[in-house]
């Protein structure tokens, strides 16, 4: 008997597997299954369609809003993003892009745009006195320099309309009704009717009701009705469409010549390069506008002699602070991680949880808390732990630096503890065993095996921790506020100020000087260059470390 596996010899030959390419029809149905969505409404596809429709609707809303605001930069970037999104999610060719498009969009909006905008602001004089556009500044100057004529009466006022043109009717103290328009001064109208100082009828005019006035608010508030044919008598204007006052402009703008003229003194102010109107003798009008000033901000940051000596001290302290913070937190974190990684320690989990606690408190709150604990007279440290010793932890230059480092150690070691624990646990056991077999003691193992392996995985985190501490504004601001102040400097900077808190202080963003966003942006670019350079150098060193490994 032949084995059951062998085919019976008399059986017909099995059907050959088709070696010919699939027919055209088969190919079409295959393609339909894989990609041609138009004929395949799977659930996932419908979901995609709905989500993209929502996204498109939102995008369309943004486009319309940008259109209404006249912001064409926003409009076109939104259109581009929408086109890209639709293309990526509906086309088969851009398949891989669909994984990175969301991230890319976020990168563009939240990183690239912000960086470019900061870069742009660094080259302008955006700040106090240069807050807006030139047309806004002109408008503000004009309304600020329109004065009520001293001793003039307040008149009950009614807004009239003759077709499209508006007119004012006022009631004088004698009970006369006077009517005027922009081009024709006030004239007494005898056959007008006024009851209780309210004009109820003027021949030839329609009296506007409240709603009609509100629809034409801008026309009403910008209407100036001359009191007489002599412009120096001023004109009637109103702010609430109920009472009119005689105003006189002390500043006139000539749109053709682009100059401001002071009506009382005749001084002519011309726009200067700094975005202000300036007279021939150098007098400037208060409200200016934003202009591009080139490298002025960068020059200003370094040219002011009052900042030269504090800057060097602050720069040195910033580097020392960032480096010492990283080293101290890393060493403590590593030490604790190794201790609690030893299996002989009981209740390791409880200890580990306790270690993480400082990490769970928000940094700014912890810093604020510590500034209270370190109060010279009433703080817990001095009062309870040191038995009433009045040690100026935050007021002595060196102690304040020590306090900042100490608090940062308290705040920062749990993070290092976490990453070191993780890195230690990922070191393979056979490597350690091999070291033991080779006769290495604990110290030798630590120096030659654990540390190099540990550093490979933690070095990038140390560098980012350095960059973070370099700009650790919250800690400094909440703990010492940069104080104690330099006794020998003439600027409001102190011994624990780091570069970023110095920027905050001298750019006026804290409200203690005139705000200068241009200067702040320029300085933050300088800081970015410094941090970037240091990080790049450090990363190069890390690569060498990996090569050793």
């Amino acid at each position: 008997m032949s084995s059951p596996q062998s085919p019976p010899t008399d059986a017909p030959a099995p059907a050959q597997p088709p070696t010919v390419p699939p027919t055209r029809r088969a190919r079409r149905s295959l393609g339909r299954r894989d990609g041609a969505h138009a004929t395949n409404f799977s659930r996932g596809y419908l979901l995609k369609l709905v989500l993209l429709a929502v996204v498109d609707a939102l995008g369309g809303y943004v486009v319309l809003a940008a259109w209404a605001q006249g912001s064409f930069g926003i409009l076109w970037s939104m259109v581009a993003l929408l086109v890209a999104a639709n293309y990526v999610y509906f086309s088969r060719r851009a398949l891989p892009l669909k994984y990175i498009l969301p991230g890319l969009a976020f990168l563009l909006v939240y990183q690239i745009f912000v960086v470019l905008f900061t870069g742009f602001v660094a080259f302008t004089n955006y700040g106090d006195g240069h807050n807006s556009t030139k047309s806004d500044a002109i408008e503000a100057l004009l309304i600020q320099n329109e004065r009520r004529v001293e001793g003039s009466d307040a008149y009950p006022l009614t807004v009239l309309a003759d077709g499209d043109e508006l007119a004012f009717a006022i009631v004088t103290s004698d009970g006369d009704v006077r009517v005027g328009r922009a081009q024709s001064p006030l004239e007494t109208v005898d056959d007008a009717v006024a009851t209780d100082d309210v004009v109820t009828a003027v021949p030839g005019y329609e009296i506007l009701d409240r709603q009609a006035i509100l629809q034409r608010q801008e026309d009403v508030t910008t209407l100036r009705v001359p009191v007489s044919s002599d412009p120096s008598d001023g004109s009637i204007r109103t702010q609430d469409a109920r009472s009119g006052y005689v105003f006189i402009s002390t500043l006139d703008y000539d749109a053709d010549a682009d100059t401001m003229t002071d009506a009382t003194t005749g001084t002519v102010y011309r726009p200067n390069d700094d975005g202000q109107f300036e007279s021939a003798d150098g007098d400037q009008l208060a409200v200016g506008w934003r202009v591009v000033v080139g490298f002025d901000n960068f020059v200003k940051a370094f040219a002011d002699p009052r900042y030269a000596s504090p800057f060097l001290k602050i720069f040195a302290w910033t580097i020392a602070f960032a480096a010492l913070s990283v080293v101290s937190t890393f060493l403590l974190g590593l030490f604790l991680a190794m201790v609690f990684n030893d299996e002989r320690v009981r209740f390791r989990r409880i200890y580990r949880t306790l270690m993480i606690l400082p990490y769970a408190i928000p940094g700014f709150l912890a810093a604020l808390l510590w500034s209270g604990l370190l109060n010279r007279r009433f703080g817990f440290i001095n009062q309870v732990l040191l038995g009433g010793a009045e040690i100026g932890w935050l007021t002595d230059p060196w102690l304040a630096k020590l306090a900042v480092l100490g608090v940062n150690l308290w705040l920062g070691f749990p993070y290092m503890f976490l990453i070191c624990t993780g890195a230690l646990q990922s070191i393979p056991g056979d490597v350690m065993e091999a070291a033991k077999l080779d006769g290495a003691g604990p110290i030798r193992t630590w120096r030659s095996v654990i540390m190099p392996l540990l550093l490979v995985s933690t070095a990038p985190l140390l560098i980012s921790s350095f960059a973070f501490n370099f700009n650790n504004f919250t800690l400094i601001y909440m703990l010492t506020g940069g104080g104690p102040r330099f006794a020998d400097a003439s600027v409001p900077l102190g011994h624990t100020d780091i570069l970023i808190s110095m920027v905050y202080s001298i750019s006026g963003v804290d409200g203690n000087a005139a705000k200068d966003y241009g200067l702040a942006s320029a300085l933050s670019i300088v800081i970015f260059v410094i941090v970037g350079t240091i990080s790049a150098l450090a990363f190069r060193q890390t690569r060498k470390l990996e090569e050793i490994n």
Partner: protein
Amino acid sequence: MRRSITFAAVLGTSLALAACSGSTSGSDDASDGAATEAADGGTLTIWVDETRKPAVEAAAASFEEETGATVELVLKNFDDIRADFLAQVPTGEGPDITVGAHDWLGEMTSNGVVAPIELGDKASEFEPVSIEAFTQDGQVYGLPYAVENIALIRNTALAATAPATWADAVAAGQATGSKYPILLQVSEKGDPYTMYPLQTSFGAPVFTQNEDGSYAADLALGGEAGTSFASFLAAQSAAKVLDTAITYDIAVAAFAAGESPYIIGGPWMLESFPGLDLAIDPIPSAGGQPAQPFVGVAGFYVNAQSDNVILANDFLVNSMSTEDAQLALYEAGDRPPALTAAADTASADPITAGFRAVGADAVPMPSIPEMGSVWSYWGVTEAGIISGASPDPAAAWDKMVADIQGELDAS
């Protein structure tokens, strides 16, 4: 999952772009939208903070009834209003009206974001100091509603009468055997605001004042008067009356615990002192001249770019300047109202009457932009003298004046 991330991403993107969209806007097109909305009586947007919201809401309700307008209140954190208003008005996103403090005025006008308000004859119905505070260059830029200043708060159980001078107050305080003869918050960074009445009693105001109550940008805190105030601070520190370790919290807690008969502070402290029988007195003079604290006036500003100028002015001049509205704001904020009639009614409360009486002789806090450059030098110098870090008070004071002058010249 992936799709929801995508969705969130594009949603975030569109929102972010929408938020940025203001920065390059031309405000012309925006008015079209406002005009169509205005058909039903107009919409007024007002920024308020939490304490004033109910009061403004009440005034807004009657205004809505009267005019058919819609008033939209936007709740803002008071500390954010100043910067947000400055940033958003140029983009056309600002409100029509915002609450604010009078000392923002210099910054507001130099950036051209507020419009003058013509109060007409109503101006005389307000406390003079409140109008003075909102006046710049002859124009009124805000509708005042509350006046706020510090005074001497006295615990009547420990001190039966008001002290005439600073020395009397210290002596009386020491005679009670309390832990602190008089409480004045200094803190490590100094508190020039709270110490200002002592400084003015030596005749050293921060800036010279013009005849109409406004300030010129000329420093007046130096000279002999200034240095004698500095020596006074050093002497008070040596006598352990003033101490930089006393912060606001510590001072308030100590007074609430009955550890001192006097504290120098404002109405904002009162809610920390339940159960104490209090009297409000003028701040005792230390240098012989009247001790004048700063007055802060709270009010409403009108956006210079507002499309609803008429509605905004109508609301402020005809609705918020009534006695009812001002009293409602008084109930909400517990500060003496700026409208004289409302202040008279509110003065039935002796505490309010006490603060109002001190405020009547006080000076408005300078609102010129130069004031911003003064604070940080001023406070730290005072703290340095009191803590003993600056052993020569006169020299420290002179250096401070020179540094502030340098800052003013540089900006």
